[in-house]
């Protein structure tokens, strides 16, 4: 992540004297970014504006149509214990999965960077969970976590551990969802972090080792700092996607038991789609968007300040 542009912008080339070239340069500067912005705007503007409208209304299908209710949906949210619960749960979930995945991702990327036997085999195999359809994977895990027939409880039985209610009890149900997420999305971390590690030149390491630095020192003072911007980027992307977890919740727990695994995105789905309380669902989506945005803004600002980002 390097929001501050690198030098080499317009006019930085001393040999670039002619105005013709400058014009071409400026033309290109806009030709490169405008199509993207126009593409996004033309598609995003209507849905965004329309969704703001929906969030301020109650939409009854049929003759009712959109009825303006002002900020009612937002006020309802404050008094809705399920919303606050889902909100907190989402943060807990996202925090746990991204934290665990990041830790494992760095660990495994670190190992895969070494000269291990079967390096390429591990690289391809570790990628597999990401490729499988999330819906199908949820069903496989549902079988694995089954109380009576599931392999997991069966294996635990070998060690004399009593069967665990993986999906039927609050705490373990959330744990199961985290487990599945870690299984499926750690590859994303491994892959991207490994790419960042690999882009560090070998000489840098060797030079450090010659200077007598320990492996740990090299890792914390060379590898990690250099890969840091990429790590931040993938963490951001994972956080965004983890907030949107849906398939596994839908198949494995249905948000239950009770509201034990009802994440915000799932609650929005229930209210917006199932109950067709679209105004309320959309209002919750906006709150989620705004809070994540604020979080990100402060996070990047903080990272800039401590100099972690260039």
């Amino acid at each position: 992540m390097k929001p501050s542009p690198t030098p080499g912008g317009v006019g930085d080339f001393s040999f670039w004297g002619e105005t013709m070239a400058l014009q071409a340069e400026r033309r290109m500067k806009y030709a490169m970014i405008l199509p993207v912005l126009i593409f996004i705007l033309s598609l995003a503007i209507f849905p965004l504006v329309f969704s703001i409208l929906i969030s301020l209304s109650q939409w009854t299908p049929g003759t009712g149509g959109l009825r303006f209710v002002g900020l009612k949906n937002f006020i309802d949210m404050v008094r809705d214990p399920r919303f606050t619960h889902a909100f907190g749960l989402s943060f807990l979930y996202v925090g746990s999965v991204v934290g665990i995945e990041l830790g494992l991702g760095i660990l495994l990327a670190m190992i895969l960077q070494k000269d291990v036997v079967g390096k390429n085999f591990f690289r391809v195999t570790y990628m597999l969970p990401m490729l499988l359809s999330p819906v199908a994977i949820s069903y496989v895990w549902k079988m694995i976590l089954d109380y009576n027939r599931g392999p997991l409880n069966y294996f635990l039985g070998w060690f004399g551990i009593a069967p665990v209610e993986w999906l039927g009890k609050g705490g373990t149900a959330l744990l199961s969802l985290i487990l599945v997420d870690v299984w499926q999305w750690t590859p994303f971390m491994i892959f991207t972090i490994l790419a960042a590690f690999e882009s560090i030149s070998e000489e840098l390491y060797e030079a450090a080792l010659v200077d007598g630095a320990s492996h740990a020192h090299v890792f914390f003072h060379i590898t990690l700092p250099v890969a840091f911007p990429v790590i931040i980027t993938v963490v951001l992307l994972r956080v965004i996607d983890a907030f949107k977890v849906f398939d596994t919740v839908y198949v494995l727990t249905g948000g239950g038991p009770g509201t034990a695994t009802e994440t915000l995105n799932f609650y929005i789905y229930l209210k917006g789609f199932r109950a067709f309380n679209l105004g309320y669902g959309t209002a919750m989506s906006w709150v989620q968007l705004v809070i994540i945005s604020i979080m990100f803004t402060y996070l990047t600002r903080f990272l800039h300040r401590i100099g972690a980002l260039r």
Partner: protein
Amino acid sequence: MRKTVLAIVVLCGVFLLASSVAWGEGKTIKVLAMTGPWVSGPVKVHGEEWGKMTGNRVEVIEADFADLFPKMQQAAATRSKAFDILLAGNIWMADLVGWGYVIPLDDYLKDPEVQYETDVPDGIKLKNMFGGKTYGLICDNDNMYLFYRKDVLGNPDYRAKFKEKYGYEYNVPPKTIDELIDVAEFFNGWDWDNDGEIEYGFVRSTKRGAQTYFYSLPWVAPYVVVPRDKAPAQGILYFQPDMTPLVNSPGWVKGIEKFIEMGKRGCGPGLDWVRGDVINEMILGHAAMAIDWGDIGPNSHDVQSKVKGLIGYALPPGAKEYWDWQKGEWVKTEEVHYAPVHCFNGWSFYITSTTDYPDLCWDFVKYMISPEVSAKDVANPFSGYQPWRKSHMQNLEAWVQAGWTEEEAREYIANTLAVTDHPNAVIDIRIPGSAEYMDVYELHLTVALSGEKSVQDAMNDCAAEWNAITERLGKDAQTKFYRQHLGLE
């Protein structure tokens, strides 16, 4: 490399063009149905037949169960012409009527070929109606009842052993919920069919989002519904007629407590059971009893079944007491008091108000629900339809082909129709937002099942949330819809 990319781009372009080529002559009727083979399958097959007869085309648009209702909502909210016919749940009738998305069919039903007056049971007619008009036509008659292993429960040795242990002789099948729990406990956790595996006494669904709330309804209805004397009457279950929830009434709470007791005494361990488990445990011979929709019947004659001809059918067990919400007291009865619930009510055909060809749609629906075609479908294990016409009792050829004996088929159909026309039968609730009410109920039900809260506390929470939904949708409007649903207006 560049050539490969170019080739891919061109190829994709060609595909895009090809996919947008329109269909030829004849009119196309678009039917929204649940993903097959069950439910949508017969529409595809008979759609082809009907298409050949009339020169038109039936296009079936399939959606997963959970996505059907959202799809209809979207189409109704935006007045999209996406669908001409809906094969949708009867319980969604109030929503569909409320949105003005479906048309009344009363005039069409005067057609003598339908034999609507003579051949259709009163319980079905009641389900097809809303506020005095007929909007949907059931092609699948849903209600929950008791399935039991005739060979196992009827075994004289087991009956004697049971008497020794519990001090009384059980009925085959059990008649009350208390008896059912005892029998299930007796048959739980040992190998009663000598196949080397441990079997269960009873199976049911307990996971949130897996239709679990339906499975609890046959347990609460006997304690909540105040008996009536005339059929077809509307058992009042969910709300009092003024929309006061009955979900936290002593009767309902007792029913849930019994449901939980059954889980502890008569079922396999674990709280992650879903409907697929119920059907499969029954047809694979792993369980002695279940309360479920009729599908276990046809499925017990499927290739995979280990219990062909061994399943018996009966009314869901009743109780000898009920909570009278009008007087606010428990009432004991001499006789067993039954209150079967039409969970989901059944799949029904609706014609949308946005269609350009209502008459053509009717022609197809008429073909689908005709006595001959429907008789074939209800006997087919791949249809998922339960019998609903009186004439299905006579027309047994398709059943015999599927491997049933005539007597067995008659027993099955008779039980289904008896439940349908039972004086205390409860028609599953059809008011706007019913899906939301039930989702909330299921949420609190699973809290009670997992033991995190007492049943009373969980149900009190549920009642509070139900009231909030009613307030949001407008209490007066909801009361009016509910009274229309009950047939009081």
